[in-house]
């Protein structure tokens, strides 16, 4: 009896945690590449930022490819994002989100058909 309760409460607690994190994630999931770039990159890379200003049209497509495949993890794994709960950038941004950000950056790179900032 006692044991079943315990298990039940663990299950419920687990469900609550999942549901809560689901809530936080639902917003990110709905965002498109542009919104994600603004929310998760521009926070640290706006105009006059000490980290350098980066919008999609700062770099050419080759440079973005290289950044996402070679340097992103190295240069961001130890960077703490105070705007998102003080977690590491690479933990805040899920692989799924990163894929969307990457596509947006490449589609609107300086040498694309439609260079853009993230607004």
């Amino acid at each position, binding site marked *: 009896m006692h044991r079943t309760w315990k298990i039940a409460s663990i299950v419920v607690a687990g469900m609550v945690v999942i549901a809560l994190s689901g809530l936080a994630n639902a917003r990110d999931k709905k965002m498109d590449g542009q919104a994600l770039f603004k929310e998760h990159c521009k926070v640290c890379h706006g105009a006059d930022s000490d980290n350098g200003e980066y919008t999609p*049209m700062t*770099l*050419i*497509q080759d*440079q973005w490819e290289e950044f996402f495949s070679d340097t992103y993890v190295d240069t961001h794994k130890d960077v703490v994002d105070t705007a998102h709960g003080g977690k590491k950038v690479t933990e805040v941004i899920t692989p799924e989100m990163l894929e969307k950000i990457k596509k947006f950056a490449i589609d609107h790179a*300086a*040498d694309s058909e439609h260079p853009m900032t993230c607004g």
Partner: protein
Amino acid sequence: MRTKQILLAVTVAGLLATPAVARKTYSHQKYFEHYEGTKTCLKCHKKQARTFFHSQHYQWKAEASNVVGAEGKKLGKINQINDYCTNPVPMWIGEYVTPEGKVVEEGCSKCHPGNGTLPGEELTDAEMENMDCLICHASGYRRGLYETEEGGWEWKPILWKNQVGLDSVSRRISLPTRTMCLRCHAASGGGANFKRGDLEYKQTDCDTDFDVHMASDGNDMQCIDCHAGEDHRIPGPGADIAGNEMPDRNIKCDNDDCHGTEPHGQAILDTHTKRVFCTACHIPVFAKENPTNMVRDWSKGIYSEEKGKHVYTATFEKEVKPVLRWWNGKTSHMQEAGKPVATNDRGEIMMAVPVGSKDDPGSRLFAFKEYHAVMPVLTEKRWLLPIRTGVFYVSGDMTDAVRQATSELYGLDNAEFDWMPTVHYMGLFHEVSPASQALGCLDCHSDGGRIDWAGLGYEGDPLLALFQKSH
């Protein structure tokens, strides 16, 4: 036999296996270390820069041998006034910013292949370095407007802070592709397809339904396959661009090296071509993707919440049916700045009128976009006036915008002016549809058909007359 088959299979497999993203290679990959502006190109291309300096594209004027009354004159945007963005000189370069911080205008030099100074008469070193070769010759190139250290303005590559990126882009050199020519031509008149109606961004990558010539999945022709020039002169100004820098090269669909005069092998169609030009039947509609500006009333400004600026009132239309007009290759009323305007019997100022008539054997019926505007005209002298459009977009004060521009172009302060309607004919030569969509007999030969027979000088539909005669 079998070995042959295997060999073939292996070869095919090998071909298929070549990487899908094979990199395009460019001849200029190793020609220079760093791109440092036009001077990088000048190291090897002084000769071409000289020819480019004299071109219509750089000077925005050229000998106007097709324009009635312009013998010996050079005409172009620089010294004409049109009823789209008026005249570029008082609006050449600079940011116009609304109180909300929105940039609503950057100047007409946005479509000039220079870095920002008005083209001069003398070929100086400064002119050489002002030319922007990359806008017509580099894939992936884009420029933006930036403030100079002296407080002026200039066009610079958006990659100016990223030398590695800039070096990469500036080496991607080739003869101009559609994309490069359309950087300017698809947005003339102030926005996507506003002006021409038949030159759209879509043509960078369109299908055969959209344009049989330029379709990526079809003939994939480049602009310069038809507009094949030399020494930076480009032929084919059409009916409403005054300058014609290659008068000896008249590009038309029925030239011998294109379709010839009897392309159908069907007598009824081939006899039509003597009086009805190809475009009349083969461009059934234009503005297939982006709506084109059909009416622009500069006298009625309104504030657009959506655009966050003051705008002229305008009508835009898609899938527009062309009007047919007689044209013999000459054009009148090209509206040189500082000349009194002439009006037609409806009181409209005539802008770029195709010359021709039914009784002139050299004329044929061509497809045109008929455009209307309302323009400011100097009360006493009847000159068309320019507008400093950026001032109007920001403040909504049209009188101020007209007076500032008039003072700069004509040196006249506090000009008194009236508003007058205009009518403007622009030839259509692009967005040719597949033959299956060409006009059929009844599109023209029927009541309520496309042709205004009386307006074109006929007593009535000649086909109908034939029937009536035989009955």
